[in-house]
């Protein structure tokens, strides 16, 4: 029992409880910004301390292999910390309008705790607890805006679809338990009776449930509505954190627990990746609301990430980690801009964002760079990410998949640049937008990371390589 490997989770839990208690002690009329500042500082220290936890050699387990603290888990924990730190920073102004802003920050941290548990899950029990802690916090956050019909609608739609997905996943896990006689990923990996009907049904149900959580194309119905209705910073965290966490555990399930069946499910994943890339990009073209457009574009982005799964090699996993990182950084920039626009222009459609280059030139520039990074245009890191993904998958012989990805990236440039056109050519209805210091810091960090890693990708590449060798592929 080496309890020290739980220290990131314990720190986050204590911080969350502290914020809940402080929220009760502070006078009602007091702003809750102080709590957010404490949270950002503690999470920042935790983020830096995790750099010292990367290790060579054997990674420690906790409690009978329920919890695994390898480099891969550390990398994802850092990603989630980054996503939540910036979500708190960009919702400072936004949360002041909410009625219970202290609880808003507490819920953000509870979802962070769920994601961090999910990154380390090495057993279906841990995976289930992490997944539910994350999603239940998100149900609450999606419905958080008071007197807003769209927010309530987003909450209930997310709750119903999410619970059905949970039930399907759990049913799959129970069948896997019946056939494999264990819930431990390592024990299941040693299992040879994969081709009994019970096991196959279980795996299919589990993968369908995970597809729901990842909003892969035929199972994506909930995501555009939830993304549109949820408060804007939460939409950002849904797109970054919840997707990255589901990807983290999905990789572990596929390439640790069911490694021996990989040859059979990879072609299926390739087909779903193609459907996602084609469907997501085409559906995004006709969207007028930017949040909704980003929802469809995130479906397409998950398609690109699935391309990396199909490679099923250390290069493939490495490119997935690289792409998840750049996707989070680009989304931080885009949603920081959208949050400001949503608060001051009351909306996130074309009308609200028109003429942003005059009212807030910095925001327009960051939005442009973030969108170009998502589209994969060369000076940004998005180009390098797509290059790694397609190189890894072409090495494994899926040339058609790389070809579809390439064509669809070209199509995606159209709707990303349409937003840029509206920002730079459209006529502003509000000629001054006030940008707070926290938002400025957030967007500048996001922009610099996107550009600098695009020019010198090798630093991130070394880190992702290091994290990806945890897998015995």
């Amino acid at each position, binding site marked *: 029992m080496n309890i020290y490997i739980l220290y990131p989770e314990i720190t986050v839990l204590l911080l969350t409880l502290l914020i809940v208690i402080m929220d009760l002690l502070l006078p009602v009329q007091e702003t809750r910004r102080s709590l957010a500042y404490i949270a950002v500082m503690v999470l920042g220290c935790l983020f830096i301390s995790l750099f010292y936890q990367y290790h060579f050699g054997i990674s420690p387990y906790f409690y009978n292999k329920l919890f695994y603290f390898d480099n891969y888990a550390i990398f994802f924990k850092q990603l989630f910390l980054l996503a939540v730190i910036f979500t708190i920073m960009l919702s400072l102004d936004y949360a002041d309008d909410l009625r219970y802003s202290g609880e808003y920050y507490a819920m953000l941290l509870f979802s962070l705790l769920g994601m961090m548990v999910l990154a380390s899950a090495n057993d279906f029990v841990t995976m289930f607890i992490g997944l539910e802690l994350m999603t239940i916090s998100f149900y609450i956050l999606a419905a958080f805006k008071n007197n807003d*019909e769209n927010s*309530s609608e987003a909450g209930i739609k997310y709750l119903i679809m999410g*619970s059905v997905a949970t039930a399907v996943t759990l049913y799959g896990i129970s069948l896997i338990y019946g056939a494999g*006689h264990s819930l431990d990923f390592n024990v299941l990996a040693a299992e040879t009776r994969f081709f009994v009907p019970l096991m196959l049904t279980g795996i299919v149900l589990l993968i369908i449930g995970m597809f729901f959580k990842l909003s892969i194309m035929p199972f994506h119905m909930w995501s555009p509505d939830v993304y549109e209705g949820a408060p804007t910073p939460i939409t950002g965290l849904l797109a970054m954190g919840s997707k990255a966490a589901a990807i983290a555990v999905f990789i572990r399930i596929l390439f640790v627990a069911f490694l021996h069946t990989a040859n059979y499910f990879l072609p299926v994943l390739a087909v779903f990746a193609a459907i996602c890339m084609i469907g997501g990009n085409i559906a995004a073209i006709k969207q007028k609301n930017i949040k909704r457009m980003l929802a469809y574009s995130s479906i397409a982005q998950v398609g690109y990430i699935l391309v990396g799964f199909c490679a099923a090699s250390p290069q493939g996993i490495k490119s997935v980690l690289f792409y998840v990182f750049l996707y989070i950084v680009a989304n931080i920039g885009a949603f920081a801009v959208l949050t400001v626009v949503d608060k001051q222009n009351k909306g996130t459609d074309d009308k609200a964002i028109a003429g942003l280059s005059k009212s807030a030139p910095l925001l327009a520039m960051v939005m442009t760079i973030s969108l170009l990074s998502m589209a994969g245009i060369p000076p940004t890191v998005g180009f390098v990410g797509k290059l790694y993904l397609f190189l890894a998958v072409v090495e494994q012989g899926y040339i058609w998949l790389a070809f579809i990805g390439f064509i669809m990236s070209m199509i995606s440039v159209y709707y990303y640049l349409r937003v840029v056109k509206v920002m730079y050519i459209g006529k502003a209805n509000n000629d001054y937008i006030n940008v707070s210091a926290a938002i400025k810091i957030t967007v500048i960090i996001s922009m610099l990371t996107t550009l600098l890693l695009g020019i010198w990708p090798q630093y991130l590449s070394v880190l992702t390589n290091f994290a990806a060798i945890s897998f015995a592929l």
Partner: protein
Amino acid sequence: MHVGLTQVLILSALLFCIGLYGILVKRNLFAILMCIEIMLNAVNINFAAFNYFLPMPDLSGQVMMIFSITVAAAEVAVGLAIIFKIYHDFKTVNIDKINNMKG
């Protein structure tokens, strides 16, 4: 009649299908929440049955069942709170009337 693993599994599969069918046809949010509960309880029966009838090395199935019951309770608590908010905003709990967002 002898009750073995097969009968219990059929029961749980039936319960799961009833829950899924209910979610698809019911229009009242409370009924949908109850159907989700039925689906989760079907899973609990599965875990308990596998753990009881098969030669398992440990009790992980029952542990998982306890966690799943806890999570289901949390989910229902959040669900009821959101339905309350829905009723406050829309003055109805019929899911067909709750469709502001389309596309």
